[in-house]
């Protein structure tokens, strides 16, 4: 007994300490809990429900009937409109993200320079971010309106033969315009990330390279671009995620038309669910999109982790 007795004070101290640590962790968990609860209910449950619907036969009004295995997926994949929408999604995503990067990099470089009125220029560049995609789409739909739009009005005034030209009637032209609007609304976010990256490059590096004999072009090539690359990667991945999912521009400007030629996956799914009542198909499409999103998310996590690890060194 005496051996046990002698160890008692230490042991109670240990117990009490771990008790305190536990209550601290418990308190931290309580602080995190509401956030987690909200997220798991409102995001987690629909994920589960969509996955469930994708493998069951679901009636028009949403009653889940018998297990359908991959039936919904097979039906969806064999729908030519779905296949077409997939291709158009690819074109849409690549064109918008690529175009956004091409436009954003020079804009960010310019906005990082010190010039008169820079704050105003920055504000204007970021302006599209402040406006609802839905409203941007509405306004652009009016701007390119063949009969009354301000674009044709301006082009005509400049003497160009565009009076009454129906921009959105031709699927190819409509899709190009939607891509341009997509680029326009993605630039502000991208410029913000790139500016964050540019401001993190210390001025002394440029001073050092100038002393080493580098021209401004050399500095751009050998200092700015390599140091900006991690930010560009992140901007690309995040833009892919956002653009891939972007719904309002296409939905409002053309509603996927004419004849589904501007449909992308997300508008296809929305129509399946809310116009045609094919919930099973819509769920299968959603699961496909969700899986692709997860892949992008993992790439993003990998990129940020790699960068974090670099920063730690």
């Amino acid at each position: 007994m005496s051996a046990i007795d002698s160890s008692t004070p230490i042991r109670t101290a240990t117990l009490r300490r771990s008790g305190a640590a536990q209550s601290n962790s418990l308190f931290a968990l309580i602080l995190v809990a509401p956030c987690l609860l909200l997220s798991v209910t409102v995001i987690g449950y629909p994920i589960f429900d969509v996955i469930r619907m994708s493998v069951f036969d679901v009636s028009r009004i949403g009653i889940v009937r018998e297990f359908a295995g991959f039936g919904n997926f097979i039906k969806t994949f064999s729908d030519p409109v779905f296949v077409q929408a997939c291709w158009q999604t690819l074109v849409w995503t690549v064109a918008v993200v690529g175009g956004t990067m091409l436009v954003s990099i020079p804009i960010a470089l310019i906005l990082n320079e010190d010039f008169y009125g820079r704050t105003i220029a920055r504000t204007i560049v970021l302006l599209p971010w402040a406006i609802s995609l839905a409203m941007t789409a509405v306004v652009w739909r009016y701007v390119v309106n063949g009969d009354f739009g301000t674009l044709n009005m301006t082009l005509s005034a400049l003497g160009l033969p565009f009076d009454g030209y129906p921009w959105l009637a031709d699927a190819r032209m409509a899709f190009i315009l939607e891509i341009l609007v997509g680029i326009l609304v993605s630039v502000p976010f991208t410029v913000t990330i790139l500016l964050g990256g540019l401001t993190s490059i210390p001025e002394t590096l440029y001073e050092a390279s100038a002393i080493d004999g580098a021209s401004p072009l050399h500095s751009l090539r050998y200092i700015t671009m390599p140091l900006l690359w991690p930010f560009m990667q992140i901007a690309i991945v995040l833009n892919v995620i956002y653009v891939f999912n972007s719904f309002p521009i296409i939905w409002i400007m053309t509603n996927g038309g004419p004849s589904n030629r501007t449909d992308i996956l997300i508008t296809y799914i929305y129509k399946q669910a809310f116009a045609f009542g094919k919930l099973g198909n819509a769920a299968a499409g959603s699961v496909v999109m969700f899986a692709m999103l997860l892949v992008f998310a993992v790439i993003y996590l990998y990129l940020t982790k790699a960068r974090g690890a670099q920063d730690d060194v």
Partner: protein
Amino acid sequence: MSKARKSVLCWVALSPFLIIVLFPYLTMLSTALKQKDEIFTFHRSWLPREFYLGNFVELFVDRNFGRALVNSLTISVGATLLSLAVAIPAAYALTRMRVPGNSALTNYLLITQMISPIVLIIGLFRMFAYFGLINSLMSVIIAHSAFFMAFAVWMLRSYFATIPKDLEEAAWIDGAGRFSAFVRIFLPLCLPGVVVTAIFTFVNSWNEYAMSLTLLRDVSQQTAPVQIAFLTGTLYQIEWHLIMAATLIASVPVAIVFASIQRYLIGGMSLGGVK
């Protein structure tokens, strides 16, 4: 190169993009101030004949657009308050305490931030339908909070991390309890960050389209962006003069608020949103 010359070059280089950005605004302004017959003629110009404010009157009096604005405002304020109420404690715990499973939790939040609600829209619709919340502003408040909260946590975390831990420790030693130190020392110092996050959440919620479109089916419950888009789709002859007036009202105040925080966004995004 002199700064003046450089400035000219910079503005010239930026001008194509700036024009494209401003073009829709000019369109909005020009159209909203025109009378209906002026839009549908062949000899149109940028400048209206007179500054006609009748479109705004018609919008509020005949079209009940005020209702849509109130709906939008209710949802945005509600979603901002709810998401901050859950995000502030979570962000505090994640920056200041050892939360079990911290990295799993941050990764989870990061991923939810990337999931577009539209992918899950069927599931969301069915869930809120189950609770009888379709056509209730509450459903959109909850949905917006859930989807915008992760970003709020993210931004708050980056602001919270800039507040030296020393300050709270000093307060503890001075005799303040954990809560007292949080309220008297921590909160006043991170107030700017909280305000920026709140504005950002507000703007996101104000502008959101897909969830509001899907969860609020009744015209009386529609938000401003949904109603504006709705106006373009249903009428035989689209009343662009009214639509542009509505767009102007729904976007300009928000754009001004947003512009006021853009300076903080560049810092905040690179601190927290990206890293």
